[in-house]
């Protein structure tokens, strides 16, 4: 650990994995049974490689290493200085530091990575997703150096990496495509002209790359111009290529993609679809396999077109062909991702395959272990991408911090958590804010969804803001349950932004009762001294407490009676609610039962002596106040403290770097005017003032990094 700190040893510094800290991580229950099953199916036991370097970080690096380990292949991690102690670094047999924290200087630093490959003698490289996974130069270089690239050939990467080229190839291969302008857009005026020809709405997107970066939808001319500006900037900063294209935007579309896998013997299989329609800002949040929407015929047609496209570029390895599907089940080719997808675990669950294993075998020149006839759909799998972000701000603005408490719900059967973090890990602003992929499986969709809900309830994430509330709400939404979804789901269901779970009358009462039970339990514990004997404790522990509970502006009085581990709470003198549990105030989760109903889990995230409680209930954290009736009555005399007028100040909604400030002190600004652009996690976010006024002071400059809530400017 110490010597990889020293930059002069960047390249030669290979840390052995004798560290006992992570052996626990590797052997925990996350190595799922079905990997083992998949391994048994494999036709050959030959070790394809002795050593593989994983040119990635975080969860995907760990994911790849797990399969390598199962196959008896040694692993090499690369890591930035910021990742010296990251899980993937510690998990690998060897680790090489490839540069400072910014990914452009480390995980994208090709020359140094190549040196690392040479120095460690790795025979193959798995690129994961993102970073160098779809970089044809990297693949070429490896080929020239006799190192296997665990992915498709450079021709396929090149052909599919460019949206214009790929669309042409797709059309030639008789794959359905979206109407649009097949060329590079020159400037904003040109974009407006093309948009006029295709007809609004249109989608402006980066020719290179994907993942929603550099992508904007425009419904009119002004939006087209704005979109052009943002997209080209984002494309330039994310992919170093600011070419854009414009195409017809399909209304109420579903995002359904086909997983394919191919070997070098001409075998190309489709492994069924994944539906990834639940997105925010074109980034996926909830994915599932199979889709509720496809019938067998559409599925086969889609699968066959995907295979046709793959064959057209002589594809080998795992890949994904993304389609947009309209309400009439017409599907259009969107793009092909020539890599392992983030959401591959759902496919692994329903097919029983280990895709990483297949990729490694294919890269070593082995044929696929299965044929198209072996591929079936067995059960249902759902994945939630758990992000460090605030879902209450535009469905998710990045947040950073340290995971001060972190417990994955892997004790629940049929739950798989792919993560690259552990308690204590820092979610930094340098990399993707994804904490983990939470995947659940069931014999049918209902079972998979219900397991997901309890997995989310039992997932303990403290220290960073996360999107569990949003995931939970999506899963419980009637439209989602019916499968009635589109990529506009979030915007349509929450037109005014996500506000968290809305409590029913019954739930409101239950939550109040739960808070009362916590209160009573704390009272009991706060009175239990073990050594106060000289002047003995007096008075008796009250077995009945009279309290006032406040939740969402609604105030009720409650009488709380304790009976061992059960609490009988009567609200407003009428509703009697029983809350029972094996209480432990030290445990971050509390599984309890209300009125002897089926047990569920809540988390008391915070509580204070002054009666405030934050309880996570069905994913959403609710603020409650429980205080004695005496205190409640006296609180009526307390002055109401007026909070600062927030409309006069602009604060950074997320941590990031200031790209530009477009106003000066003394300027008059109008409501909604953009005054500052902040880049965070490679997304550009335009910040606008919320009222008319004159700029009184500006508290940041360009290139300065800001924390969440930092003051940007004040109006007068």
């Amino acid at each position, binding site marked *: 650990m110490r010597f990889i700190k020293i930059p002069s040893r960047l390249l030669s510094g290979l840390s052995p994995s004798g560290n006992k800290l992570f052996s626990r991580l590797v052997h925990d229950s996350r190595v799922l049974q079905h990997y083992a099953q998949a391994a048994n199916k494999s036709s050959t036991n030959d070790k394809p490689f002795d050593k593989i370097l994983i040119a990635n970080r975080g969860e995907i690096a760990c994911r790849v290493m797990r399969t390598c380990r199962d196959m008896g292949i040694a692993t090499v991690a690369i890591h930035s200085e910021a990742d010296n102690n990251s899980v993937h670094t510690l998990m690998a047999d060897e680790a090489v530091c490839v540069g400072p924290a910014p990914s452009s200087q480390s995980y994208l630093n090709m020359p140094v990575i190549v040196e690392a490959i040479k120095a460690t003698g790795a025979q193959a490289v798995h690129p994961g997703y993102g970073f160098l996974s779809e970089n044809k130069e990297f693949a070429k270089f490896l080929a020239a150096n006799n190192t296997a690239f665990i992915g498709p050939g450079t021709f396929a990467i090149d052909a599919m990496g460019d949206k214009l080229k790929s669309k042409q190839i797709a059309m030639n291969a008789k794959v359905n495509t979206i109407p649009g302008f097949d060329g590079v857009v020159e400037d904003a005026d040109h974009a407006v002209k093309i948009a006029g020809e295709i007809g609004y709405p249109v989608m402006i997107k980066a020719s290179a790359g994907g993942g929603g970066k550099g992508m904007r939808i425009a419904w009119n001319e002004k939006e087209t111009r704005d979109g052009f500006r943002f997209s080209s900037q984002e494309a330039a900063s994310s992919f170093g290529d600011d070419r854009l294209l414009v195409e017809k935007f399909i209304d109420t579309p579903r995002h359904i993609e086909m997983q394919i896998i191919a070997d070098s013997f001409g075998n190309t299989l489709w492994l069924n679809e994944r539906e990834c329609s639940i997105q925010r800002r074109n980034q996926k949040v909830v994915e599932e396999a199979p889709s509720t929407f496809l019938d067998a015929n559409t599925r086969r047609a889609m699968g066959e077109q995907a295979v046709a496209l793959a064959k057209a570029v002589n594809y080998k390895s795992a890949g994904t062909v993304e389609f947009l599907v309209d309400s009439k089940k017409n599907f259009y080719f969107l793009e092909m991702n020539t890599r392992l997808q983030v959401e591959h675990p759902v496919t692994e669950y329903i097919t029983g395959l280990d895709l990483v294993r297949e990729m490694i075998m294919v890269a070593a020149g082995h044929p696929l272990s299965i044929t198209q006839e072996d591929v079936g759909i067995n059960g249902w799998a759902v994945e939630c991408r758990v992000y460090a972000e605030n879902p209450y701000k535009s469905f998710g603005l990045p947040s950073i911090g340290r995971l001060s408490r972190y417990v994955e719900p892997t004790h629940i059967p049929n739950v798989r958590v792919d993560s690259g973090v552990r308690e204590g890990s820092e979610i930094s602003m340098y990399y993707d804010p994804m904490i983990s992929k939470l995947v659940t499986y069931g014999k049918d969709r209902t079972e998979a969804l219900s397991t997901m809900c309890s997995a989310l309830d039992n997932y303990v994430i403290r220290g960073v803001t996360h999107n569990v509330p949003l995931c939970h709400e999506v899963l419980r939404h009637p439209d989602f349950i019916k499968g009635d979804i589109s990529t506009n789901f979030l915007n349509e269901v929450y037109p005014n932004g996500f506000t968290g779970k809305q409590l029913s009358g019954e739930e409101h009462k239950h939550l109040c009762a739960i808070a009362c039970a916590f209160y009573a339990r704390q009272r009991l514990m*706060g009175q239990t001294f073990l050594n106060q004997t000289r002047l003995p404790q007096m008075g008796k522990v009250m077995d009945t407490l009279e309290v006032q509970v406040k939740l969402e502006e609604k105030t009720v009085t409650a009488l709380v009676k304790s009976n061992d581990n059960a609490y009988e709470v009567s609200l407003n003198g009428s509703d009697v609610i029983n809350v029972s549990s094996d209480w432990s105030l030290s445990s971050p989760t509390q599984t309890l039962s209300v009125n002897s109903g089926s047990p569920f889990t809540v988390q008391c995230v915070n509580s204070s002596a002054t009666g405030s409680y934050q309880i996570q209930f069905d994913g959403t954290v609710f603020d409650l106040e429980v205080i004695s009736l005496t205190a409640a009555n006296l609180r009526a005399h307390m002055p109401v403290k007026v909070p600062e007028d927030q409309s006069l100040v602009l604060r950074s909604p997320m941590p990031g770097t200031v790209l530009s400030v477009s106003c000066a002190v003394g300027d008059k600004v109008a409501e909604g005017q953009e005054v500052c652009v902040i880049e965070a996690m490679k997304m550009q976010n335009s910040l606008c003032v919320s009222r008319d006024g004159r700029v009184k002071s500006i508290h940041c400059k360009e290139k300065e990094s800001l924390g969440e809530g930092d003051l940007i400017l004040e109006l007068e």
Partner: protein
Amino acid sequence: MLRPLLRKSLHSLWYTTSVSQSRCSSQATVSIQENIKNKRKRAQLGGGQKRIDAQHKKGKLTARERINLLLDPGSFIEFDMFVEQRCTDFGMDADENKFPGDSVVTGHGLIHGRQAYVFSQDFTVFGGSLSSAHAQKICKIMDQAMMVGAPVIGLNDSGGARIQEGVESLAGYADIFQRNVMASGVVPQISLIMGPCAGGAVYSPALTDFTFMVKDTSYLFITGPDVVKSVTDEDVTPEELGGAKPHTSVSGVAHDAFEDDVDALLKLRQFYNYLPLSNRDPAPIMATEDSAERSCPVLDDLIPNESTKAYDMHDVIRALADNHDFWEIMPTYAKNIVVGFSRMNGRTVGFVGNQPKVKSGCLDINASVKGARFVRFCDSFNIPLITLVDVPGFLPGTDQEHGGIIRHGAKLLYAYAEATVPKITVITRKAYGGAYDVMSSKHLRGDINYAWPTAEVAVMGAKGAVQIIFRGKDGQAEQEAEYIEKFANPYPAAIRGYIDDIIEPRVTRSRICRDLNILASKQQSNPWKKHANMPL
């Protein structure tokens, strides 16, 4: 005629034993009963409903409401409800100027079942001003608290001296001061300032162990804004001069401030649970569900790779403490040192930690004084000390030197050297120079001294050291590397036995919990002296 009267006062023992006395006398008795009842009733009302309403309007609770909220329901036993002020000048002896109990409510009760003595100044009676009767009431409970061995909590809300009484009032203050000093180190004393507290009155809170304030409604100053204006021609509001903000962040007079009266009293109840009742009692142990063996993986990743990068010492403390609870003392003053109470395996402990996030965690005048006072409190009341060290040294500069960092830094050194409670030290990263010695080092009778693998015990940082050792010579970078190799690790100290063990951060909690169990029977005493002469 007699029958209804009899029924009315049947509860009176005196009456039932003297039924044979004359009708006239029994009537007198009855009227005494009535009188007592009336007095009690009037005492309950303090300065009357009008003044109570005015008090509420200011966002403040009355003296009695405060006591009721602070103590367990129904546990308050009042003393001296019938005491009245005895001033005869300026018409003070008129009936309407006699308020049963005068301007303070005193007595005792329970907080979470444990004994506490309390006085609560009543602003509705003569603005809570201090008469000799008022002072006498406070002294009475303080005397008893010391004999019994239970803390004294003062709820201050007083306009100052009872001017009508003149020197008697001043005498009253001094009587209280004397008792504050005698009780210091015998029973914990807590002051909660819930209104004005001005002039000589401020010295009572200043002599107690902890002074808390209520935001926006409490003030502490020797001379008010008017006098300030006339003497120095300075325009200042009471809030700017002596409100919660300046006292918790600039002067260091107050140890924390709370939102409002209710908030303050509920928090005080929680705080009380950390304290032993007296110097005769051990640090309290509470039942806990947090395992002493709990591993803290979060600590493994906490120390940044670059030794110049900061981290938050609160994260270390919260990870170690039972239920991640930490009651911080002076959270907004001298933030380069963090002090406060937590529990380890149920037992109250005092944490002292350098805060790398603020001024790199160096020791300066304010941090030294803040730390020293906390260490001495813990030592007085048998609370074990856990010191987390990441200190680059003392803050350099003329400000500090001329401000007397030598004198003030010595206070912290003195406090640690003098302390005989269990002392456990964990060096998390830097322990440089004299500051290493000060921070509960082995040499100052540290009982258990641990180092994390990231610890660097050295005279100074590599750069400075190399500049001195190799002055005027080339190859600084290499020499620096050599120095780092030699000293930027825990070995030099471990080889000499200055640290007892190098431990993985994640096991720190379980090790400390085990150590505390053993050290509970620690016996150590200092040589007899009248009192020590600490560098004040």
